[in-house]
């Protein structure tokens, strides 16, 4: 039995090593910098990752010699909730969160008060639509935008609907040829749901719900839910709403449906890559338009390198970088179109890129996800 403590120690060693490496990891994150380096936390698909790694970060480091920007990337945002909780905990305990600029879950961080006030530290923000800036919440800086468009197969739909009312009529007249993804699983389906809800909601109430959280106003949505539930029998397979923007694009591309709301950037990139057939077209509808929104970055309140982080945010809003964003991931420029080249102005002409209608406040958005699930499928 003399050997047993040795064996136990050997068994414990990996655990101890793991713990030690964890603690050393966090301490190195705490001491990194000295004012010349920032850590950016972003999430999204590989196109967003490449945008940061191959364009934004090298450009910034070139324009600001001696600085270093480190990217921590969370593919598909699988760990957004955990990273957000970590940021919240670090801010609460006044510890270094290990991230200076967040480019994911920015809306949640803004509404939880975890972002530093922008003030005049990002001069380029002056040329961004103030409504778009306000929709992001406290401390959020929009850096690119996209909107939801109505995509359709032009070979089967020669005269696509131009308004929401026409679209609803079309859906009823062509059973099984339309669907949208469940709002919780992606913004394109959510935009369709929001547009139907908005067509029954008074503008004054909607404006309040864009920037704040007013649970009592959600009763305005009741007729909208009824209308959405009445579509069940006429959407794909009598009420199938796939999970995810991409699943809907796939149904559309494979010809299982003829029409669907899609994200502008996903549609444009998909067509460029050939995964979406050339007969597919996309357009904006009216009364109301589908919502669009910006992607935001925000400097964390707990960051020790706020000045440099604000510089990165400002740099991203320069027309040159905005043009690269438009080219790389088909993102609408966040700054005014008049500052962009005519080529880019043309690219986004059909999408009405400068008249984005913002979505709801994030708390209302999560309520929409929940209420949709309660009121629409299977009803």
């Amino acid at each position, binding site marked *: 039995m003399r050997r047993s403590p040795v064996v136990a120690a050997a068994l414990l060693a990996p655990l101890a090593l793991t713990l030690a490496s964890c603690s050393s990891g966090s301490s190195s994150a705490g001491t990194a910098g000295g004012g010349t380096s920032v850590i950016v936390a972003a999430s999204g698909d590989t196109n967003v990752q490449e945008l940061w790694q191959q364009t934004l970060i090298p450009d910034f480091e070139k324009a600001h010699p001696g600085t270093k920007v480190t990217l921590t990337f969370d593919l598909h945002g699988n760990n957004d*909730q955990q990273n957000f*909780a970590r940021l919240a905990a670090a801010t609460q305990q006044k510890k270094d969160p290990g991230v200076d600029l967040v480019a994911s879950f920015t809306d949640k961080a803004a509404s939880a008060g975890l972002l530093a006030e922008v003030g005049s530290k990002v001069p380029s923000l002056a040329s961004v639509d103030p409504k778009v800036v306000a929709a992001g919440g406290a401390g959020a800086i929009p850096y690119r935008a996209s909107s939801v468009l109505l995509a359709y197969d032009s070979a089967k739909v020669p005269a696509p609907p131009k308004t929401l009312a026409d679209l609803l009529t079309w859906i009823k007249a062509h059973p099984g040829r339309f669907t949208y993804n469940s709002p919780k699983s992606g913004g394109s389906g959510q935009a369709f749901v929001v547009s139907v809800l908005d067509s029954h909601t008074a503008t004054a109430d909607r404006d309040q719900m864009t920037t704040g959280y007013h649970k009592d106003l959600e009763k305005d949505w009741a007729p909208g839910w009824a209308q959405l539930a009445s579509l069940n029998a006429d959407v794909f397979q009598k009420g199938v709403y796939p999970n995810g923007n991409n699943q809907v694009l796939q149904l559309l591309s494979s010809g299982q449906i003829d029409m669907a709301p899609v994200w502008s950037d996903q549609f444009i990139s998909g067509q460029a890559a050939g995964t979406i057939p050339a007969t597919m077209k996309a357009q904006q509808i009216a009364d109301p338009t589908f919502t669009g929104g910006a992607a935001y970055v925000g400097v964390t309140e707990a960051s020790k390198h706020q000045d440099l982080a604000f510089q990165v945010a400002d740099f991203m809003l320069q027309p040159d970088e905005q043009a690269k964003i438009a080219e790389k991931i088909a993102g609408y420029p966040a700054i005014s179109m008049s500052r962009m080249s005519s080529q880019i102005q043309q690219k986004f002409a059909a999408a009405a890129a400068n008249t984005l209608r913002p979505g709801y406040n994030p708390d209302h958005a999560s309520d929409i996800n929940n209420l949709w699930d309660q009121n629409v*499928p299977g009803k």
Partner: protein
Amino acid sequence: MRPTPTQSTLKHRLGGLALASPPLLLVTIFVGFPIVVAVAYSLGHTGGPNATVSLIAKDQVTVDAWWKQSPGAYGVLLRDERFRRDLLVTVLVSLATTAIVLVLAWVIALYVRLTDTWVSRLLSALAVIPMFIPVVIASWVILTFYASDGFVRTVADQLGFTAPVWGYTTTAVVIGLVWTQLPFATLMVVSGVQGVPDALIEAGRDAGGSIPRVVWSVVAPMALVPTVIAGTFTAIGTLGSFTVPYFTGPNAPKMLGVDMNDYFQSYNLPQSSVVMAVVVFVVASGFGAVYVWANYRSSASTGRV
């Protein structure tokens, strides 16, 4: 008969405990503690380790002192018709999957046991293959296979009739879960049935029993324990499954694994999500009790307890 504990056996036991302590510690810290914290959160305790999650969450039931407990979060959820529907579907899908898996595993096991040919060996090997295919990929394959433009419908159309569309239905969820759970159950049941000695089967046949009769009276009782173990593992695994129902299932009704994720991530209602987890845990411990009983029975029959 047990020896009375002396100095040396005590030392033995402490040594054994020391050897077992790293995994025990690991389980206590990384599994036991979070369970206690989560149950406390579901009863309204939002302080301490739950402070961060409750800072973000909406619509929480809270208590104002550590000795108080509030069943409020449970009440809200149990009154919700949607939750009751999803709980029922989850349990029914688990039971249906378990039943189908056990039947299939038994058919394969008996075939392998009673006819030792290359076909039977191939079949038992094929049944294990799903274990090596990631569930995400399998779910997609199942979805496209049974989709409205999928293989099944295409073949049926060529033959002149119309097959049903199973993509995005609860049927697809059951098919997918059977697919993922079958390998483990097959391994368990096949090894249990293989363990029945030839002599016993031949004795039964010599006594004039037909093959069904021998299977029922000799093989089945001897392979009961591995069957129960395979069944409980399948039921528990199905109860908490996420990937298959998320990809292949309908929007409503949903299985609770998907619901928990939605409530936590999409609806920002982590407390309800934790309450569901506790409910699933309670149902799973019902299945777990059967497992413990089966283990006890097998230990008792070999004289270990």
